[in-house]
Every structure is written in structure tokens, then in C-alpha cells.
């Protein structure tokens, strides 16, 4: 099982080739910023609610 590196700790010690956490894609700083940006998330809140209502209407 792999040892785990916190993303952003870019040292040789935390780079673990051939282990499970070496391969998955990780979000950039910009992606992480938008995940908790109030204005963008308010927009996503509206979009997600519409998506879910579409789903409910399909029943």
C-alpha cells in the first residue's frame, strides 16, 4: 500500500512513483479556488438545483 503525499509538498520525499497516489489527477490551485469561491458556487448552486429538478421530473 502506498504512502501518501499531501499535494503541494513537492519534495523528493513525498514523490512516490509506482504507488497508488502517484497517478490520479489532482486539482490545480485555480480549480480548488473555484470550489469554494462564493460567487462561482452560488452560480453552481443554481445549476445543480436545476439539474436535480430535471431528474425529479423524469420520475
Amino acid at each position, binding site marked *: *500500500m*502506498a*504512502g*501518501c*503525499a*499531501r*499535494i503541494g509538498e513537492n519534495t523528493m520525499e513525498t514523490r512516490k512513483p509506482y504507488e*497508488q*497516489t502517484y*497517478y*490520479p*489527477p*489532482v*486539482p490545480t490551485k485555480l480549480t480548488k479556488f*473555484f*470550489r*469554494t*469561491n*462564493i460567487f462561482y*458556487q*452560488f452560480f*453552481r*448552486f443554481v445549476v*445543480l*438545483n436545476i*439539474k*436535480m*429538478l*430535471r*431528474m*425529479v421530473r*423524469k*420520475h
Partner: protein
Amino acid sequence: MNPFLYRRITTLCNCALLCSLLLKFYTVALDKIFQTCFNKSGLQNMARLLILGAGIAGQTAALHARKRLGRGHEVVVVSPNSKWNWIPSNIWVGTGYLKPEQVVFPLAPVYQKTGIIFHQAKAVSIHPEGDSGSATPFVTIEHTSESKSGQSENVYYDYLINATGPKLNFSATKGLGPDGNSLSVCTYLHAGETAKALQSLVQKMKKGEKQTLIIGTGHGNCTCQGAAFEYLFNVEHELRRQEVREKAKIIWISNEQELGDFGIGGMHISRGGYITHSKIFTESLYTERGIEWITRAHVKEVTKNEISYETIEGEEKTVQHDFAMLLPPFSGVGLKAFRKDGTEITTDLFAPNSFMKVDADYSAKAYADWRPEDWPKTYQSPLYKNIFAVGIAFAPPHAISKPMFSPNKTPIFPTPPRTGMPSGVMARQVAFNITDMMNGKAEAPKRHASMANMGAACIASAGANFFNGTAVSMTMFPIIPDFGKYPDTGRDLQYTSGEIGLAGHWIKHFLHYAFIYKAKANPLWRVVPE
């Protein structure tokens, strides 16, 4: 004031008062006439709908049925618990973000308000043909309230909905569960105890001790990976909030073949120019949050500091822990069933896992032969047409994820989840079908609610905070993959999506209040969808 105008206003007020009194009299008189005609003269016989269980499915069915049935019919609910629990929020109780009393409310006042008869009791046995004394079907219950504890009673019914939910089968794994060496968030009481254990662990970490936390599934046949997933990321978020994250090693252990399976075989979504499997996004989140994972594992034993598990390759392995929150496998609650002459027919009415057989195709099939049509549509028992089972209580025809076995023949794959949304939808449709039959509008169930033709929206919390919390928001259609209609991925990519962000946390918080509001049958409760 002009005397003429004053007289006009007084006259108008008197007229309005008289009209309202007449209206009230008219309403009461109509009600009396209705009661007399339909209950006493025998134009329409009173019928009784009995619902076993008051969880998401049971409560949904009870409220809809009560609303659609006149006072000439009875709705009776039997539940061993005196409180209703919004189970999806238990994970927040398990981290201390919510208190146990914030996810429950007493059932009796709601039933009193809505005119539903309530017995705080557990169902013991079903007698669908009655007994030697009477041909009326009944269920034997055993009271669990303080005043009547241990007393048995027969509750007669015309229609029965089994919405008993699961038995938390901790005994399937040695040492599993709050009475053993692991914790749980399956009930609000378990979650409350788990929160205390977590806070005690945090105190140790604050003193500089390193701790290992293991979260996941406690058996090779578990379901509900989503709940364990939510708890995992909420714990990680809580440890960051308490500034002890670097002292914690967090490990996910699961019976899924790959991360992101969730018991539904995972799902594909269109993102960034690719059709991508949920495995990729889930692994990304685990890596981002520094969480290790063990998949394809059947937990065999939990001791105070060690978890033993078998891998899909058949290897026996162990992992050390200081804190383990492992979900148990589910089974039916163990209801028995008897014919009129006392012959036991439990195995006819129920599958071997004690879930109730309904209108599904239970013939043994290879994975390649699974079809969406295998899944039930009306949830009606094939043996007794007045018995239905909804929510977790019905027996699925097979898994959704591909069955996998170790070389020792140990099954290591998730059983199908039946989350709140599909449970609510099927409960509503079954309630509508039964009320139509009771009201004489139909002779057989007309409405369908197959999981193969139903979508689901799922919000999985990944950290609770109004400003920096996140949740994974997923939608999928259909729940059961249909490779005939959607050959590439089994699901409609227009309706299947997933993203992580603060908006998901807001939605989950909103749903917490909305569904508790609905379950309390407060005004306009029907506006809140299932």
C-alpha cells in the same frame, strides 16, 4: 365618518360573518353525511393500510396514503422507534458538527396531527391468510414503548407495506460494531458515540500522539459505501479544522473493486473532453486529501487495534488502527410468515437474506445476462397481492456491481444501495397504487417505480462548513445501468454528472431541513420532492 358609508361597512361585515358561519356549518354537515354514508351504511367498507417501519420509505408512504385516503380508511404505522431519524445527516453527528437531537423528532405528535394510528412496536410475524379464528390477515407486533414493553398484539390489515429497512448485521464479522471493537454512524445514537470517540482521539493528537483511523466497510458484502465515504471526508475536514491533520494517518478500506464504485458499478461522466469513470475523480479526491485506500477487501475480524481482511486474491492481511468506523452488512429484519394453518412460509415470502420478495426476476443469472427488466416495478408480493415492500426492505434481484470472488469463494463486492431518493419515490408510488385500490379507482397497481427507469441525485458531504465545506453532487439516470439503451456506459450522459464544491454542501444542508420539514408533515410538505 359618513353614516351611510358606516352602515354599508357594517352590513358587509355582518354578511361576511354569516357566510363564514354558513360555510363552516356546510363543511361540518358534509363531513357528517360522508361519514354516515361511507362508514355506517356500508356503501364503502373501511379498509386499513398497515405500514411496517417509519424510516424514509415508511414515512413517505404513510403521509401520502393518509392524504389520499378519506377518513373512512385507516393508516396504521408500526415502528420500534419513537423518533424519526434523517439518516443522511448522521455522518455530521459522527463528527460532532450536529448534535443527535438535530437529526431526529418524535413521531407520535406528527401522527396525531395527521390522523395516523401509531404503534411503537416491532413486527414479529406476518399472517397473510389470518389464522384459525379469522381469515383477516394480520401482523403480530411486540410493543417497545416503556408503558407496553414486551406486550404482543395482532394488528389486522387489508393492505400491508413492509418498509422495515435493514437489520444492521454486525454479527456477520467478528468484533464488528459498537458492541465490539469498531464504531458506526448507522443510527443517531451510534453516531453520537462515534463523535465522542473522535474527539477523544483529537485530544491525543493534540498531545502529539500519531493515530491511525480506518473508515469503510466491515464485510465483503456491505452496501452504503457512500455513507462511509462521506464520513471519511468529514473526519478529514474535522481533523484539519482542529489542526491535527498531520498527526493522523487515514485509511479507507472497502469491498469495492475500485474507488468510486459505490455499489452501482461506478458511473461515467462527461468532463474536460473525456468520458471519464468515477474511479478517476474519486482517486483524485483521496490523493488530494492525503488518504490511503485498500479496496477489494473482505474484513474478517476487528480487534481492539487490528483489522484482519481477505483480499480478492485470497491473501490474509492485517492493518493496525486506533479508530475504526466500519459499516456493517445489511439483512432483512427477520420477519417470519405463517399460513392460516400455522405452516411457516417465511422462505416463500422472503429471500435468504430476509428481504421481501416482490415482482422482480429472482432467477439465477450470470452477470452478462442481467437486464433492467429484472428489477421490480410495483413492489407487490407475487404471493399475496395486498403485500408490498419498499426501500431497503425489498429483495433486489441481484447486485449492480459485478460479483467478484476470492479464490476461497469469498464474495467481495458491494450489494445494491437503495438510497433516500429512490426509496422515497418507490414508497410514494406504492402508496398511490394502494390508495387507488382502496378508493376503488383501480384493481391492480398502475404506477411503476423501477430503479431501472429512475434517476437519483446524491449529495455526498466532503467537509461541513458554510464557507469552506465541500460536497460531491452526483446525478445519474438510470440507477440500474441499461446497456441496451446506452451501450457505452449504461447511463444517459445528459443526466449523469458529478462535481465537487461548496454549492453541494449548501444543498445538503438545505435538504437536511427540507426533508425534516416534510417528514413532520408541516404545511405544503408535498411541495418537497422525494
